[in-house]
């Protein structure tokens, strides 16, 4: 699967990483819905770090659409409140 981090890169992740990605994403949703602002940076950071460290950067001359597009790393808790709700970013 291909995940893009807005403002950064597109990453190609092995399909088996999808479930771990979903877990991390659900954790972010839980933090946001629970209003636990103090935990937001670390939980969202963990999601992004997982993508960065497990994915292969898609080179600039490869043209493909992403399966998931993640908001930029400097997303604020308030902005996240509008983005991460319900099912979250990653469709099941």
């Amino acid at each position: 699967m291909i995940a893009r981090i807005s403002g950064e890169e597109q990453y190609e992740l092995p399909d088996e990483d999808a479930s771990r990605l979903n877990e991390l994403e659900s954790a972010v949703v839980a933090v946001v819905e629970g209003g636990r602002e103090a935990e937001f940076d670390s939980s969202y950071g963990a999601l992004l770090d997982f993508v960065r460290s497990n994915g292969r950067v898609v080179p600039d001359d490869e043209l493909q659409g992403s399966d998931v597009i993640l908001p930029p790393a400097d997303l604020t808790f308030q902005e996240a409140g509008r983005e991460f709700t319900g099912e979250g970013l990653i469709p099941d």
Partner: protein
Amino acid sequence: MAGLGGRMSTVVKAKVSKLLDRAEDPAETLDYSYQKQVEQLQNVKKGIADVVTAKKRLQMQETSLQQSVVKLDTQARQALSSGQEDLARTALERKNVAQTELQGLDTQVAELEEQQQKLTDSEQKLRAKIEAFRTKKEVIKAQYSAAEAQVRISEAATGVGEQMADVGLAMQRAVDKTENMKARADAVSELEAAGTFNDITALGSGEDDIDRQLKQLSSKSAVDDELEKMKGEVGAPAGAGQLPAQGESSEPAPPAGGQS
């Protein structure tokens, strides 16, 4: 699917498929898409130029505020030397406001610098994607049947479209930041225009609106401390009497009691 990610990719895909629906000739679609992409790239360049302009504006304000700080400091010393403590206090209060504004501007300039860098990086990435698209479209034109070409075009256009949307988002964030800063910079300009940071000696003893606002704004104790310090440095009238021209050097100016 909720969230920005979902929406953004859906929008990109919708636009691409709309484009493809309209097209009868894949070659035409490809050339048209490429042309649009190049246009978008120009917009990105304009966006970067806007950020640079905003940054320059703030930097000019910084320079002007720095000059005000020096001037107000000199004026405070002059006022103190001639025994006008109230005037000296007003000058120091204004200096305090100017200094606070300066600190704010520093942070903002640094932030804009960062935005500019991000946008420049995005622009380069987009440029690379568009270049890849240009190469790919020639391959598609040459090698694929019309039906097959549709699929390839869709893929390629989505890839570029997404990068475009990404730059668009970065640009939007930069614009939001710039707008906030502009509002603040305008407020500083108004203070300047109102003479707040200008010639203190032109002031009468009467308090105007600005004076009252300034008193609320500035940290009073900081001003008091600085005033005391400056008194020591200047050697206020009570001491060495640097301006004996008035003739009444025997009678030191009373330390003006106004503590408001």
